[in-house]
């Protein structure tokens, strides 16, 4: 029983939400719709800028690359939080946590589920970007894999913090599941370099793993090179934040059992 993971329980979480996903238009919209709208909007905007400013090279690549990579952060974060919220909305948390499942099995299930959905949305968006703007995300080469790993980790630690806050403050903070990740959006330097940010904002950007990834993306697009140093800094920051966020979530889960908030969320 003291296995690191209870694979059957992990599978249960994945199956439970995949069964629901195909019948729930909200979740399908979350997976595909908003990112597709972003691709269309920013693709058209960047095409227009390029037409009027031909001296700016690779502007479409910059915008579409940024949008697709940001999708990893946003979707992986949301996929961490939605299973918890979904079970709370369904008044199923008591049923769920009265079984032998442990928090770690639940987290592992949400991670696997998130990766499955992220793969689907990534393939879909890549195809849409290619069909509409002949943009090939794989042009970023193996940097794409390094960026994906780091950005998914960002989504995960932000998601764990939000889940911890939901366990602590209940539905009062459920809007964080859709909004909190955007707190790092302006400091992540997705479409512009960190240098143009004011001093205090640069300081914030320096402690965010995302800014190093998007700086590297721009280096590849404009110079064809990227700094391994940036990738390593991003990865180290991610490991630190991921560890802290898991400890925070564990503490909040334990607190929710002590205060009875887990049951009240139901």
């Amino acid at each position, binding site marked *: *029983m*003291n296995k690191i993971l*209870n694979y*059957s*329980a992990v*599978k*249960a979480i994945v*199956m*439970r939400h995949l*069964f*629901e996903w195909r*019948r*729930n238009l909200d979740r399908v919209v979350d997976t595909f719709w908003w990112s597709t709208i972003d691709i269309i909007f920013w693709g058209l905007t960047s095409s227009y800028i390029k037409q009027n400013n031909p001296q700016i090279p690779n502007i479409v690549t910059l915008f579409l690359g940024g949008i697709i990579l940001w999708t990893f952060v946003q979707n992986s974060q949301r996929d961490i939080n939605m299973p918890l919220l*979904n*079970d709370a909305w*369904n*008044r*199923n948390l*008591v*049923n*769920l*946590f*009265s*079984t*032998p*499942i*442990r928090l770690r099995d639940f987290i592992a299930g949400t991670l696997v589920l998130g990766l499955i959905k992220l793969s689907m949305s990534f393939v879909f968006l890549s195809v849409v970007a290619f069909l509409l703007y002949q943009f090939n995300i794989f042009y970023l080469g193996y940097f794409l894999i390094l960026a994906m790993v780091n950005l998914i980790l960002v989504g995960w630690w932000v998601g764990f913090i939000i889940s911890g806050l939901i366990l602590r403050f209940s539905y009062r903070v459920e809007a964080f599941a859709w909004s909190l990740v955007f707190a790092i959006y302006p400091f992540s330097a997705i479409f512009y370099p960190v240098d143009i940010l004011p001093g205090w904002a640069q300081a914030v950007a320096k402690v965010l793993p995302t800014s190093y990834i998007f700086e590297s993306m721009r280096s590849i697009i404009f110079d064809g090179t990227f700094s391994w140093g940036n990738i390593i800094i991003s990865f180290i920051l991610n490991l630190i934040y991921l560890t802290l966020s898991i400890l925070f979530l564990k503490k909040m889960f*334990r607190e929710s*059992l*002590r*205060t*009875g908030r*887990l*049951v009240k969320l*139901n």
Partner: protein
Amino acid sequence: MVNTMNDEMIVEVRNLTKKFGPANAKSVAVDNISFSIKEGEIVGFLGPNGAGKTTTIQMLLGLVIPTSGTIDIFHKSLFQHREEILSEMNFSSTYTHLPWRLSVFENLYVVALLYSVKNARDKVAEVIKKMNLEEIKDETIDKLSSGWITRVNLARTFLNNPRLILLDEPTASLDPEGADEIRKKILEYRKREKATILWTSHNMAEVEEVCDRVIFLHKGKIIAEDTPRGLAKTIKFCRVSFIIEEKQDEFLRIIAQNKWKAIVSDKFITIELVEEDIPLLIQILAEEEISYSEISIDKPTLEDFFISTARKK
């Protein structure tokens, strides 16, 4: 009732207390309770709203951490062997819902996986058959009536062949026929598997019918513990009802003289008195030539115990 009990205690709760709220203003939901349940026993967990029944069940399920006290289930500490213990227990409540966008089969399959049931699909199919759910197995939960949902909830409870089942008002949303069917299914399972059941309900007749023993909670404390009949017997008063169409005033005057309590509704009169006084009442009726067309005597029930205890405290 079939005797499926042996003397082995499989639930032992000692000095269990749960306080909620900030340190300086804590409210006590469960106040230093201790009880044991024998293997194969059905124990009714009764009490008015806010008595602490649900909090106790939540602690037995590891959903709420107690402030103090110990819970041993199957001779192991729940806090140290949570997964092991929960894999041999199950729980069903009218107040928790199943994911409503999943079909009956999908819901049961997910639960089977959560309990690491081997050959989960086959087990689900077997339980669906036993619970007569074949005709709705592909329906999503949101399309089912409350009667069907209760049956599905109960089917969910049997998936891991639990040795201990906690049932929180399992028949609360059902009509009498549906409730009877659910009770039969539970009792069949208990007989077959020699399972132990902790059963909360506000339906006192149901508790009297199914429970071997009752634990009565009030304001977080256990205030009585006995068989349903034993608890009912602690109430000394019984009720005698008549239909009296003539000499009603004279009859009520005699009742008042004897300091019995009468409830009058048109020609229906109910007298509350100790059982030993019934012959005296009948004798007075005969002597005063007061005629009645119907008479019924109701002995005290568990419901009377419930109402009287809840009011007294």
